[in-house]
């Protein structure tokens, strides 16, 4: 490109831009093959009636999308997805932020050990973790109900009762979210100048005021970013737990759009409806991310 700017001649500029496209090609081709290709394939599938194996598939227009709207399952799954998101959000933002600040304020050996223990849930194998919870939450022999009975409280069928099942799935999933985000908040705090805390101390700020007025505002962007990011990455973790512990039940109480998609595709072998669900999910998240980008740009502009 420097050549082009130096000479400003037509042919040289053309060579420069051709060269640029040449450099772009590997990235573009990879994106087409692995990202946009499957997306396009999914979009096409969403207009077909296909069972994943038969050689012929019938075109059915928007009927698959109609199925999503008319049958109650997908609406229920979408609502549950929102509930999951709302329940996870505080554990992606407030809780890890508080833990990270607490450890940042008292640096030292104890803090380091605590940090390591907190990170452990991230490295535990997901299915093994879910199976362990299955034993712990077993209505008759599980450790939780045994303990409740021992102190004279009534046993609860944590995963079998539609009222508690979703919250239980959330409870067994969030340690991982908290662990990862505590680490990431810790990284963000490393960029906070400790002298600003000392300056606040000179200004006679109390400990709580230092946290609220000096430390947290410096983490606000991290908080928004991690909240957003967690709402994107938490679904596979929830999926594993739903798949092992409840399979979406009882009476679809723990179902969400991802598990519903999986059910359409691999329980009902209805590739068309599953693909339509996938497209709806992709569009919904696209809109969500666009909203986030818009908000964060406005936030940056106001700084």
């Amino acid at each position, binding site marked *: 490109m420097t050549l082009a700017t130096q000479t400003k001649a037509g042919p040289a500029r053309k060579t420069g831009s051709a060269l640029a496209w040449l450099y772009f090609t590997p990235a573009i081709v990879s994106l087409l093959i692995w990202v946009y290709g499957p997306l396009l394939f999914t979009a096409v599938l969403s207009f077909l009636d296909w069972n994943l194996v038969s050689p012929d598939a019938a075109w059915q227009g928007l009927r698959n999308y109609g199925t999503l709207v008319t049958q109650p399952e997908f609406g229920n799954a979408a609502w549950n997805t929102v509930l999951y998101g709302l329940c996870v959000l505080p554990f992606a933002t407030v809780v890890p932020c508080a833990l990270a600040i607490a450890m940042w304020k008292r640096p030292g050996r104890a803090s380091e050990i605590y940090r390591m223990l907190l990170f452990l849930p991230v490295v535990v194998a997901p299915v093994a973790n879910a199976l362990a919870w299955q034993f712990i939450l077993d209505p008759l022999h599980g450790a939780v109900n045994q303990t409740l009975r021992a102190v004279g409280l009534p046993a609860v069928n944590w995963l079998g009762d539609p009222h508690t099942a979703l919250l239980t799935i959330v409870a067994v999933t969030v340690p991982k979210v908290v662990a990862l985000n505590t680490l990431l908040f810790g990284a963000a705090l490393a960029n906070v100048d400790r002298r600003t805390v000392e300056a606040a101390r*000179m*200004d006679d700020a109390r400990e709580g005021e230092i946290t609220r007025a000096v430390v947290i505002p*410096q983490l606000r962007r991290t908080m928004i970013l991690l909240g957003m990011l967690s709402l994107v990455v938490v679904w596979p973790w929830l999926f594993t737990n739903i798949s092992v512990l409840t399979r979406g039940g009882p009476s679809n109480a723990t179902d969400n759009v991802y598990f519903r998609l999986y059910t359409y595709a691999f329980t009902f072998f209805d590739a068309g409806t599953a693909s339509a669900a996938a497209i709806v999910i992709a569009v919904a998240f696209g809109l969500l991310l666009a909203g986030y980008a818009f908000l964060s740009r406005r936030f940056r502009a106001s700084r």
Partner: protein
Amino acid sequence: MTSAKLIESPVPGAENAPPAGVLLDGVSKRFDSGRAALDVASLHVPSGSLTVFVGPSGCGKTTALRIVSGLEEPTAGRVLIDGTDVTHAPPGRRGVSMVFQDFALYPHMTVERNISFGLRLAAKHRSESGLDSAEIERRVTQACESLGLTALRRRRPGQLSGGERQRVGLARAIVRRPKVLLLDEPLSALDAQLRQQARAELVRLHRELGNTVVLVTHDQLEALSMATHLVVLSKGHVLQAGSPAEVYRRPQDEFVATFLGSPPMNLATVTVHDTGDRLTAPGLGARLPRPLRGVPAEVRLGWRPGDGTLRHTEAPGLVADGVVDLVEFTGDAMIAQCTGDSGRWAVTVPANDPVPAAGEPVRVHVPAERLHLFDPATGMRLEA
């Protein structure tokens, strides 16, 4: 620290009652590593002075400042501010403000909110402080005007230059009307041109506010030019305290003598003759107006490069011979670096005088009253 010891300690301005200003009384500070960062019998900052703590890095000057601020608690000893023991008082309750080396402004607040933060907290914590939003606004406006920040009030620290940030840090510190203002290397983050300007600004501010200012620096030139009271520290101890002129003219030991002044003081080991009024070393000879009494047979003789002259004189004093190695041009003067038979020394030659060329022999004369003598074993000053 016992009370008997306190009374014994020679504190300027008072016998028993603690003096006005800041007093570090028998203060020591050890860090977890066991290293003593500071160990002073008595360090006094006179009320209303611009006191500069100066010393090489690691001498304890910043630790001393942080102990006054309350951000660091001393391992032993007491901190007194205007006679009140504040050793265990929290930093915000001592009537002390601080400007940090890198200013430590709150990055998410505008300039005016940075400045008013402490006042807003005081209004919230103590209704008797008499601070309402009108009073806070008035004080912030006043501080902004006095430091030329009025146009920048709505900016954030990220949008300011180094000099502007420093002025915001100063405004934030003075707006609380502290009894003592602490400045931790306030000029080191500024570039050379701005530094000169900021130095004058600080001196003007001190004169206007009339409160006690403590400034920490490793730059001896800055220390000499700004201080009304100078404290030289090394390895956690106070070596000398006094007015800059006094410390410069009568350094208490070899360290102070060579640390202050640029180029540093020349030093040579000389033999004292039996008569006591003649000092000699190869290439050096000094004649004193009065004979020395009770000094070792060999002493360290010091003279400042600026006190030497190339003009011949018959008055008593030092005559040193050497060969010029290098001539440095500094604008107002030339510094000739020379080698004599007893080591290297320097002499400052006024720019309008004839300057010897490199390789030429020179003879420098220093008047007797400008000579300094130090004990070769202890490094302490010997009185002639």
